[in-house]
């Protein structure tokens, strides 16, 4: 199977380049990550991040034939040859398929992605009805792979000012949590022309999310909350 992979070693290369590989796959190689590991046994200078190999850690997020996704759950049989692999778009490239996630995480941390509740801790858990818990479905499952934010044109143009789909999904995850008490502060935190409102419902995020989540819908709900309290 033929691959064309983005290569860049800041120690050696002045410019990035695409390198072609053609390798014989075994019948046991089902996912793109299997192929990449096989390529690495031939050319061990190809660098990539990977960990769980089952689509839950988000380490091996990359741009596959033009679309962001996780290598470990992308079937080789679904891919058109030559398979073009590039690092996630928009983020600084450290080496080959490895990008600097600092900007992405900075935006994530900026929404205070933890429960804020100053009531004294109860004996056991802070209780929540099944209906209240259901509000968190489709939000808590985010693996922070960055496929969504790096697919968002608004994030490309303003990664330092626009929080991005991943960060905003988590912002809503806490806004929607019945146990959280900082709703007002969380919304204040997004009251800015850039933080939330650069989202124009482009919906690339929904298209690429490997976990099937919908940041656009969550962002819409945040916008609803902001309108309601302004009225």
């Amino acid at each position, binding site marked *: 199977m033929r691959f064309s992979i983005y290569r860049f*070693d800041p120690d050696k290369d002045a410019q990035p380049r695409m390198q072609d590989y053609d390798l014989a796959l075994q019948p046991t190689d089902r996912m793109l990550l299997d192929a990449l590991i096989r390529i690495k046994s031939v050319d*061990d200078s190809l*660098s990539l*991040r990977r960990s769980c190999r089952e689509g839950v850690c988000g380490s091996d997020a990359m741009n596959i034939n033009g679309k962001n996704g996780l290598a470990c759950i992308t079937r080789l049989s679904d891919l058109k040859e030559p398979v073009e692999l590039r690092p996630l778009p928009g983020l600084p490239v450290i*080496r080959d398929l490895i990008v600097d996630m600092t900007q992405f995480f900075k935006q994530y941390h900026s929404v205070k992605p933890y429960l804020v509740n100053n009531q004294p801790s109860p004996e056991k858990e802070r209780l929540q009805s099944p209906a209240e818990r259901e509000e968190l479905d489709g939000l808590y499952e985010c693996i922070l792979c960055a496929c969504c934010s790096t697919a968002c044109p608004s994030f490309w143009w303003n990664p330092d000012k626009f929080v991005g789909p991943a960060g905003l999904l988590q912002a809503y995850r806490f806004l929607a949590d019945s146990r959280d008490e900082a709703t007002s502060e969380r919304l204040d935190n997004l009251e800015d022309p850039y933080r939330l409102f650069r989202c124009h419902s482009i919906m690339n995020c929904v298209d690429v999310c490997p976990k099937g989540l919908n940041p656009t819908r969550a962002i819409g709900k945040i916008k609803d909350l902001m309108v309601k309290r302004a009225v």
Partner: protein
Amino acid sequence: MRRVMQAHCGVFRFPDMLIEGVKKIKDAAQRAQHTEIRDKSKVFNTARVEALELDNLIEVAVATMVSAEARTESRGAHDRADHHQRDDGNWLKHTLWYKEGSRLDYKPVHMQPLTVQSVEPKVRTY
């Protein structure tokens, strides 16, 4: 290493496989001494990380293999076809592996927890 451990040291273990496994994993450990990485980069060198991980993995693999071969009872995920029962009389002890001299040693199990009630070892039946 993966193949040897999977075949010779899975959950269900057999005496002849364990003996052969010890020999094979020690061979693999010898080969691992001559690991070569072609990537010499100083930036995010995943080949170097994988080589270092191999060093650690092979050492744990040898320790696991030798300890399993030595334990003549079944306990938890160590199920031996020739010694199917748990043998608390002889084997209620922790295995210690020392790289220097490649030697095994044992230490007793701590039977008295500090803050909770002690639970007597019982035959496991479901």
